[in-house]
């Protein structure tokens, strides 16, 4: 129990330090703000016209939530790689602190960036006609689910940073996998129109589940023209989004921690 208390306390100290860094680095949040705005405008007005106009724009925002939070995992990758490169992680490693706290502190503090991205996306959505039509409990559940997903993908970013070891490599490795995972999903289109192997991937892709779940919880119906998938993940989108996020943490937290502990063998 003492170990757990210590880990939480140390993670809090690390997260506090990370937040002070973010607040005192003008510009560090810029891409977290601009990115969702850019994707909203691109998809709503460049692609959206051919995909269903106003109806599509309401459908779109759930997808942008999922995609933006997924992309935010690259902030974790770059932030942690930066600490590794600058010797900050060595400072931590020479201290008698909890081993997991260095990574947990980072994934926790990156929730702040993700929250900001969520607010910006929601504001963009409201500006283009997206509306929340459900009650407070659904909205709260939706926000919690989105943040849980953001927290989960952050662990993938941490694993990338600890594998890459340099900021440059972390930056490129942290981005390459994001595009296929974000776009081979039901975030922006109907997966029913995809060829079979991609459709199966998209059907089980957590991004699909998170996008679908947030549409459900915020009360956004898909446009009539977009055929919606059937099957267990689609019919239990909220549950599946939560389970797959938990699974991502269950896989990537131990992997990241293992990488962290192996630093000393280099």
């Amino acid at each position, binding site marked *: 129990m003492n170990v757990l208390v*210590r880990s939480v*306390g*140390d993670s809090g*100290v*690390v997260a*506090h*330090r990370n937040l*002070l*860094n973010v607040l*005192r*680095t003008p510009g560090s949040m810029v891409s977290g703000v601009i990115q969702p705005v850019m994707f909203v405008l691109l998809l709503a007005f460049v692609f959206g016209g051919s995909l269903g106009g106003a109806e599509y724009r309401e459908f779109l925002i759930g997808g942008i939530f999922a995609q933006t939070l997924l992309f935010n995992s690259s902030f974790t990758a770059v932030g942690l790689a930066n600490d590794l490169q*600058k*010797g*900050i992680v*060595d*400072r*931590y*490693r*020479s*201290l*008698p*602190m909890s081993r997991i706290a260095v990574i947990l502190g980072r994934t926790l503090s990156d929730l702040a960036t993700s929250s900001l991205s969520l607010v910006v996306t929601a504001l963009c959505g409201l500006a283009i006609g997206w509306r929340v039509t459900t009650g407070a409990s659904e909205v709260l559940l939706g926000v919690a689910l989105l943040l849980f997903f953001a927290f989960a993908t952050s662990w993938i970013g941490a694993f990338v940073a600890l594998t890459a070891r340099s900021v440059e490599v972390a930056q490129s490795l942290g981005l390459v996998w994001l595009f296929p995972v974000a776009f081979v999903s039901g975030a922006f289109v109907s997966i029913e129109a995809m060829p079979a192997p991609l459709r199966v991937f998209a059907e089980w892709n957590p991004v699909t589940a998170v996008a679908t779940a947030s549409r459900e919880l915020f009360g956004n119906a898909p446009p009539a023209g977009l055929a919606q998938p059937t099957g267990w993940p689609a019919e239990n989108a909220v549950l599946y989004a939560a389970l797959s996020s938990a699974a991502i943490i269950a896989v990537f937290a131990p992997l990241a921690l293992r990488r962290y502990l192996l630093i*000393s*063998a*280099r």
Partner: protein
Amino acid sequence: MGGDDHVIDVEGLTKSFGGHRALRGIDLTVPRGHVLGLLGPNGAGKTTTVRVLTTLLRPDGGRVRVAGHDVLSDPGAVRRSIGLSGQYAAVDEKLTGFENLRMVGRLYGMNRAQAAERARALLRRFRLSDVSDQRAGAYSGGMRRRLDLAGALVARPEVVVLDEPTTGLDPRGRMDTWEIVSTLVEDGTTVLLTTQYLEEADRLSDTIVVIDQGSVIARGSADALKEHMGGARMDFVLAEAADLEAAAGIVADHGHGRPEIDAGARTLSVGTSEGQSAMTRALAALERGGISVVEVALRRPTLDEVFLELTGQDGRPADVPAPQVGGVR
């Protein structure tokens, strides 16, 4: 040897990176309250040794104990006993001096109030009180280094490890750092510091260990190392630079090793173990050879000369056997 009286106890430490053998069997012991200066050129293995001692790097072979704890079997206890200040000065530039130290205190397990109080005390001690609420990024190089040093002392550790504490500092900053190390010694802290500066090792350490290419090539006090060089050096300043070659031939018969020639200063320098009598004979021989000498000196070698002889000039490995000087292993 070994046991409780040695706060740092390293035996047969080896470490390779890929095919490169960075450490080839280092032995070190540091008694409680002593300062050990680990001296060597760039790439000698100083930082690798420090990283193993501070649990940042796992050794490949050998036994490493710090404050009685093994770095492999009980790294947590080692971390609780040490304070590290690195050459890279891992202070967080976005945090104030106070926030930096408070964070370190918290991560050593202090509560908020204890950590804040300790941070204030250290900032006072390191003359950083005036800038304690400014971001470390705005500090001068010397102030930043003092902050990094303060970070190493937050938990009042038994052992303080300083990796090249004065590299990149101006003379003023270097003097400051030396002063801090001296006060640590007064407190009874055991210190291991690495340096490329002989003067620094001489001034701060009780014992100097010279390492080169991953091996210990000499150890002892600064005085003992100088003795090892064959006691003394004879310097001859000639009237005519043209005489240098001839004079070197004559002087070589009365000293040991090849005389070093500094043409610009018209100076010859050679080692001797016989001191005064060798000097008298060499001067007589020079006079017979018709060489006019304007200045002579019989002096102890500088540490630079010791260092250059031990490490071999132009980076060659020295073929001197590791001398065991003095009582320290």
